[in-house]
């Protein structure tokens, strides 16, 4: 699996927001073995220069950064944000997020496809945050996206995989496209389930940052993602409706 030519060992991507402290953020990222973290751009005060401190922390982590366009509601906003991010973070990667509804933070797939086209024409490498819509996926690929990031559930909801059927269909239709479940994951078992479906990676933030012990939870997710991936590769047993004795019946004593 490659993300625009980059092949990470870890299939867990983490966000950098909502951690109790910078130290806990760093420890969580390190323990997780994550090689790609998401970041954003926000207004910097000339007085406090808070962003400078955050940035030096992230740089010290020595991971690839995936800047997002979080909070953007229009194509224009998303594009300007992406352009600014490319300069600041010195990367062509952009997590494209164009929100269409504020209660569910559902992406606006019309705007997302349009923005993706423009950004790719400007040389960006786009990671689009999307629904599980198959037609949208096709359009994003035609626009030049080489990675797709369908949601599991609304951002920050921790509900897991709301539409397993839809995610399974998406995986089946695009067997060779790197697919990342992004958002909605609440528990390691959710992440493992996504990987068992054949997804290439999982991106999450709140489930780690808002855990009572974010560092330990980061480790838990790292293991769960690896477990789900290995299970997919190992070829799981078929589920059955009836029981089947594991211990052989043959040779059972008559007592």
């Amino acid at each position, binding site marked *: 699996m490659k993300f625009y030519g980059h092949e990470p060992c870890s299939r867990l991507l983490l*966000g950098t927001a909502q951690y109790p402290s910078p130290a806990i953020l760093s420890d969580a990222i390190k323990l997780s073995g994550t090689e790609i973290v998401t*970041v954003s751009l926000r207004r910097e005060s000339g*007085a406090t*220069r808070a*962003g400078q401190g*955050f940035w030096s922390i992230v740089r010290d982590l020595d991971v690839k950064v995936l800047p997002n366009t979080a909070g953007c509601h229009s194509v224009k906003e998303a594009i300007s944000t992406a*352009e600014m991010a490319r300069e600041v973070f010195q990367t062509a990667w952009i997590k494209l997020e164009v929100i269409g509804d504020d209660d569910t933070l559902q992406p606006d797939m019309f705007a997302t496809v349009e923005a993706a086209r423009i950004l790719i024409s400007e040389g960006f490498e786009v990671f689009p945050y999307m629904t599980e819509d198959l037609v949208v996926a096709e359009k994003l690929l035609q626009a030049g996206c080489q990675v797709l990031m369908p949601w599991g559930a609304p951002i920050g909801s921790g509900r897991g995989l709301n539409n397993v059927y839809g995610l399974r269909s998406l995986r089946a239709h695009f067997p060779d496209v790197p697919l990342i479940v992004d958002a909605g994951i609440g528990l390691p078992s959710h992440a493992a389930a996504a990987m068992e479906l054949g997804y290439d990676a999982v991106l999450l933030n709140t489930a780690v940052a808002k855990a009572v012990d974010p560092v330990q939870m980061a480790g838990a997710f790292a293991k769960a993602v690896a477990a789900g991936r290995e299970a997919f590769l190992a070829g799981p047993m078929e589920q059955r409706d009836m029981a089947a004795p594991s211990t052989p019946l043959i040779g059972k004593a008559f007592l």
Partner: protein
Amino acid sequence: MKIICNGEQCDVAADTLARVLLELGYAGAVVATAVNGAFVPISLRQNTPLKFGDAVEVLAPMQGG
């Protein structure tokens, strides 16, 4: 001259984006800039004049999900 920087009114002496950034304390800071909603790359800050009422955005890396 009155401009809007990061959504707040401010009165600046300088009249180019580059100088305004210095004046407002962004010297050496890792930031990206936009004027009136359009991205202005570093290379153009010097030659980007600011006029009364311009809206400047100065953004830096921040936590993101």
